[in-house]
């Protein structure tokens, strides 16, 4: 341990009084809570726009408005499955790392990145073929804003995964130390489940 222990204070104060050193260290781990709060506040962003979409829907006599079509639900389902599947592979990757099976971890992460990219491609295809425009109707406003925001998150997630992959090739993460990966996986799951809601909102409901 290369830390200046004399500056830590547990020799003098706690460590044998109010808290054990283990408890103290557990208490001081701020990163996970910080990341969780970030995800929470990010989810509010989506929640606000989902509320807006529902509000616009309730104000419209018919939904989607006349002359506007929803995206193709069948292709949408396939696309959604790509993203949901990437959640599974991301999960596998995390497990492989915890089990010290680095090769498995790398392959599953690559699979996640590919599936995520395919999803983005599918979104682009949908954007190109949908009979609605961003500025044309309230449906378009809600649809493109929310899916665009989500697509941006997926894009950031793909970049994030690539970065963690490169980092892990350089040996940054070990089965014991992998907070960055935990965060990336959680973020990816978060992006996944947002799509569960959006898929229902725009394709089914």
């Amino acid at each position, binding site marked *: 341990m290369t830390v200046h222990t004399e500056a830590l204070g547990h020799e003098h104060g706690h460590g044998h009084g109010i808290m054990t050193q283990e408890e103290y260290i557990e208490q001081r781990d701020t990163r996970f809570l910080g990341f969780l709060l970030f995800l929470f506040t990010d989810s509010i962003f989506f929640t606000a726009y989902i509320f807006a979409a529902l509000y616009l829907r309730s104000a*419209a*006599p*018919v939904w989607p*408005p*006349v*002359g*506007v079509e929803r995206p193709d639900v069948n292709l949408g389902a396939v696309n959604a499955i790509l993203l949901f599947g990437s959640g599974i592979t991301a999960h596998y990757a995390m497990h492989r790392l915890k089990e010290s099976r680095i090769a498995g971890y790398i392959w599953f992460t690559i699979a996640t990145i590919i599936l995520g990219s395919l999803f983005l491609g599918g979104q682009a295809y949908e954007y190109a073929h949908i009979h609605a425009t961003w500025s044309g*109707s309230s449906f378009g406003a809600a649809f493109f804003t929310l899916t665009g925001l989500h697509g941006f998150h997926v894009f950031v997630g793909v970049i994030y995964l690539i970065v963690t992959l490169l980092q892990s090739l350089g040996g940054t993460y070990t089965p014991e130390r992998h907070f960055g990966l935990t965060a990336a996986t959680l973020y990816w799951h978060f992006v996944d489940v947002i799509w569960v809601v959006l898929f229902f909102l725009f394709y089914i409901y």
Partner: protein
Amino acid sequence: MAAISAILIVLIAIWPINNTLAVAATSDYGIDALFKFMLYFAAPIFVFVNGYVLYFARRYKHRRDEPADAVGIPLYGVVPLEIWWTVLPALLMVVLGIWSAVTLFGLYKPQAGALNVEAIGHQWKFELRYPGLKSSFYGDFYLPIDRPVTMNITSADVVHSFWVPQFRVKLDMVPGMVQQLHFTPTQIGNYPLVCTEFCGIGHGDMRTTVHVVSQADYDKWFSGEQQQVAAASASAGALNLAAGVVSKGQAIFEQKCAVCHNMAGFAQKKVGPGLQNIFSDPAHPKLVDGSAPTPEDVAGIIEKGYSGDIGVMPNAQANGLSSSDVANLVAYLKSQSK
């Protein structure tokens, strides 16, 4: 302090709000009574908080002869007291809430035999439309005394607000939405109609005058405004849809209906839905009910008005439409329907 509070309450009770700002509309809403009630309980709260602060500040002030490290009594709380000042305000708020709720629902209650007037906000003037008057006008307008009024308000551009301080009621004029304001003018006089919602650079001068006058004066003003209406109503007979003329219908549409309706697809909403293809578009759910609408259905809606989840439309009388106007409009709508 109780004495001071009591004096304040008595002062409030005899303070003539009506002289400071006269109520010129029926006060059955009880807005002033509610306001006074709030002042009644506000007075003791204010007096007691400030009184105790001042009293404690004098009574317990650190004196020079006390040691520098003197401290106050070690009092961490008194549970019964804390319960009291949680429960009592809560009860007070319940009373106030119930009173406010009752008053609130009274505000939304339409009165029988009400005069339907429409007010449309523009940057930066009020447009008024009366039943039986062919055209709308801007600026000063008249209301008869003691007759209930239902003011249908909306806006043509941005959010405005309709407020006559002496009437005590105010609602926003929201584009794409019609709101109804119910009141009965009870005092003859001239009152300002003010826009209170910021609406652009002309907001400060967006004022006009509402003249509350006797029924006789109102009739005189109204007949003066009426002019052409007499001729139109003379020729009005039973509704004869076959006699509708497309070009005349178009003229009326542009003059009146176009304020709220686009001649475009159903979803092209202004205030009401777009009316193109009204005979063939399945999107007009209230017209269709499964079967294609007939000219009689459409004429019925124009004549009787509409009120439902896609908005509120005044009836033919309120819109100043004669039977022949309705027939012309139906003919025009039919010509526009594919």
